[in-house]
């Protein structure tokens, strides 16, 4: 993507005023997105992202610069400008790049760019029809198709040079159900680090029906009651619980500065002994899988919590320096416009022993959150929140009726201790995770599990 000699010259210029590490990140990304609303293709946009990010690290300080202009002349100019923030002496560099052998966890069978747009459009219309015809209560359906091919090259003054090709495809359906002047939404959006063969794995009609099923269910649901109660979260996107309640707070960006509730807690019991949690950037073709992270470190499977005991953090190079620890292959960034930092890849809670029916039937009264929406967390306090997209009240060990508009809030450290049942059918969902280094695809998942007591925020008083 960029000549070795140019890379060398740029890295040398970057360390022209001191600093002990320099890195270049080159990105060339082609993406295509198509939007269908109300049965008609409304938007169709494609293009090329192209740019270079240059990072200089001087002990614990980081300087970052980026540009779209990758001529040698301009890159050296940008590197020198960035270096001018330091006042040290030039460092004599002898670089001998070692191309590392990386495992390819994301084999691509059909490049999306090889498929005619017509075929993509036809799939969208199929998904639309299935969603729209699901029920007369469905008043609007939007379908989005997205594919991207991101090529990255990362080289640094440690002699590392790595390249990766990330191909991702996603298909999402959003349905709106209207009833008595009110509107409710349902959403389902599977995606993978895969090419067009994604559509051999998923059925677009089923995706459409699922979005409409949720919208319809919520249109007939009552407002959720408020209060503190046991909450059962289902598998797949239920993994947002761990992602928000704990995952972010394990990121080295917070740990290294002592601004996370999990700082200095390695080896301690921080959760229910039923809980084992993993972040794994190597699950084949999974949404958050990459062969190397955005600092060129190979991704790995990181055991975060084992039987309740904190085993590892998510670490990038810079924060690793502050902590005196090695990178866990967790340095990620949205694009060349962002300096990398520690992030999650695919984060999930491992299977336990209970089955789903057991969990429901042993819950006298509570909330069953079948589908969760997004959430957020303040890593300093551990306070988190997330939305329930599809929820049901449980009465006397049985699922009673759907309820809508619930938000779950709590504190990360406390909620992990309150997990008292873990199911045995783990599955993964796909999300987009926004933080300091931009928005990156993140996989998440869990088996169904129960939190003994959690604050449920709804609009109705206690039942």
């Amino acid at each position, binding site marked *: 993507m960029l000549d070795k000699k140019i890379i060398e010259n740029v890295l040398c210029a970057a360390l022209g005023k001191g600093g002990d590490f320099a890195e270049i990140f080159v990105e060339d990304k082609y993406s295509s997105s*198509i939007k269908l609303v*109300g049965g*008609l*293709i409304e*938007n*169709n946009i*494609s*293009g*090329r*992202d*192209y*740019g270079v990010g240059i990072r200089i690290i001087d002990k*614990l*300080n*980081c*300087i*970052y*610069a*980026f*540009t*779209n202009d990758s001529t040698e002349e301009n890159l050296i100019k940008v590197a020198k400008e*960035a270096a001018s*923030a330091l006042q040290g002496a030039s460092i004599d560099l002898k670089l001998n790049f070692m191309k590392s052998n990386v495992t390819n966890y994301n084999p691509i069978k059909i490049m999306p760019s090889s498929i005619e*747009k*017509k075929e993509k*459009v036809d799939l969208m219309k199929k998904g639309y029809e299935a969603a729209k015809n699901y029920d007369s209560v469905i008043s*609007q359906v939007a379908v989005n198709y997205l594919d991207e091919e991101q090529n990255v090259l990362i080289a640094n003054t440690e002699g590392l040079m790595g390249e990766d090709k990330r191909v991702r495809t996603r298909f999402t359906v959003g349905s*709106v159900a209207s009833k008595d*002047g*009110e*509107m409710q*939404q349902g959403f389902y959006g599977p995606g993978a680090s895969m090419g067009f063969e994604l559509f051999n794995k998923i059925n677009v009609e089923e995706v459409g029906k699922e979005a409409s099923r949720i919208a319809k269910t919520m249109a007939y649901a009552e407002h959720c009651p*408020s*209060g*503190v109660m046991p909450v059962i979260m289902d598998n797949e996107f239920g993994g947002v619980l761990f992602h928000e309640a704990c995952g972010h707070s394990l990121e080295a960006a917070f740990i290294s*500065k*002592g*601004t996370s509730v999990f700082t200095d807690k390695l080896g301690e019991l921080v959760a229910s002994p039923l809980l084992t949690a993993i972040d794994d950037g190597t699950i084949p073709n999974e949404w958050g899988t990459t062969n190397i992270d955005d600092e060129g470190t190979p991704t790995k499977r990181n055991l975060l919590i084992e039987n309740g005991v904190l085993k590892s953090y998510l670490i990038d190079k810079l924060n690793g320096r502050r902590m005196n620890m090695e990178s866990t292959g967790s340095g990620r960034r949205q694009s060349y*416009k962002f300096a990398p930092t520690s992030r999650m890849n695919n984060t999930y809670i491992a299977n336990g022993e209970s089955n789903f029916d057991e969990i429901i039937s042993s819950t006298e009264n509570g909330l069953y959150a079948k589908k969760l*929406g*997004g*959430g*957020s967390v*303040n890593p*300093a*306090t551990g*306070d988190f*929140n*997330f*939305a329930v997209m599809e929820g049901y009240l449980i009465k006397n060990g049985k699922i009673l009726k759907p309820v809508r*508009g619930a*938000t779950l*809030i709590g*504190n990360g450290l406390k909620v992990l201790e309150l997990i008292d049942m873990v199911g045995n059918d783990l599955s993964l969902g796909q999300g987009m995770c926004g933080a300091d280094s931009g928005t990156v695809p993140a996989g998440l998942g869990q088996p169904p599990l129960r939190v003994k007591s959690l*604050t*449920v*925020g*709804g*609009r109705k*008083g206690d039942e």
Partner: protein
Amino acid sequence: MAYRELINKIFHKGKEKMEDLEVYIENSKEIEIKVFNGEIDKYSISESGGLSLRGTNNGKMGYSYTEKIDESSIDMLINEACENAEYIDSEDEEKIFVGSDDYKEIKFHSEGLSTASIEEKIDLVKKLEIEALSLDKRVTSIQECVYKEFDKSRYIVNTKGIDLSDTLNGAAIYVAVIAKDGEDIKTGMGFRLIKDISQVDYKTIAKEAVHEAISSLGAKPIKSNNYPLVIKNTIFADLLSSFASVFSSDHVQKGMSLLKDKVETKIASPLLTIVDDPDLKDGFMSRCFDDEGTKTTYKKIVDKGVLTTYLYNWKTAKKDNVSSTGNGTRGSYKSSLSISPTNFYIEKGNNTFEELIGSIDNGVYITDVAGLHSGLNPISGDFSLSASGYEIVDGKIQRPINQITIAGNFFEVLNDIDAIGDDLEFGLPSLGYFGSPSIKINSISISGE
């Protein structure tokens, strides 16, 4: 302009395949300075941009973009835009605009940022961090202390004769502190949106952040019930921002806004007036023309509780047989044309903040919410948000409250406004620039203990 030759080549070649074409170029310079423990933790500078091409092919609009702005991209841009247009089957007419008759000539670019040296900016963030750490022993560390600046230019040139450009800049400085008291940890934040660095009073920003963290130590939930509520100005601005799409004509036309058929009807308390003001002097969305070259205008969207208009771009206006309101926007050169507000705010009312609080016997003052991107639904208007603040007893702010949720419906809240403060402030800009005074609501459902 350096791109003139390239644009001419694109038009020349593009005209062979398409009817009308438009090039939109955005360039931005950004600076970000983060300080931690007195040192520069991160210093980021950039100059980048992209070019978007859109054009009509048999009356349908196709889009493409590139960040490699040179001749090597010309063929890709034209072929992609042309092919993308082929698949559009929406019947809505979409044209390249010929331009407005006249444009205001207001300069929104501030010298107070562009002439200040980088050393001055670094010095300011460092001082802010030191100040925030010095005010109270219980402040144990700084979560973030950041200065962020943008300087953005736009060019719109099309084959119908539009040839426009402008520049806009702005900056934000903020500090988030962590306070500890035993096992109890709380955070607080202070920020300012700035157009002139010499005007920044960093001591007050630090004071606000520290006050928010310290005063919320010992916070506990309140009993679940319905309470009268005062919502802090910048937080209500965030809420307004999250629901702004309900005013978009595009959402209305697609049946995704409950404001359908509500123009000229009362949708809110008569106390409420919402303004879209592209001329605002220090606004971060101030502009004389929108992203398709339509001149912008000051307008009241809600006037004393009555909805007066939706926000339009050229395409949606045509569909409703009205004129564009100058709200055609692009998220970036990577996005197609959509609709968003410019500087969008609730007009200030007649009550002081003290009067709002003083009028409540038993209620809650909300100073922060979380989950705005997930805990609310712009289509139904329903929201349920994690919140924190203070209990109000006998007209006075009392103990801190956290781990509660406030839940309701945006449209019901607009009708339930009981009083509006005179303390209009703008929130930290994410997509757009939203402002509000502090607002008193008669009753909202709170879930706590």
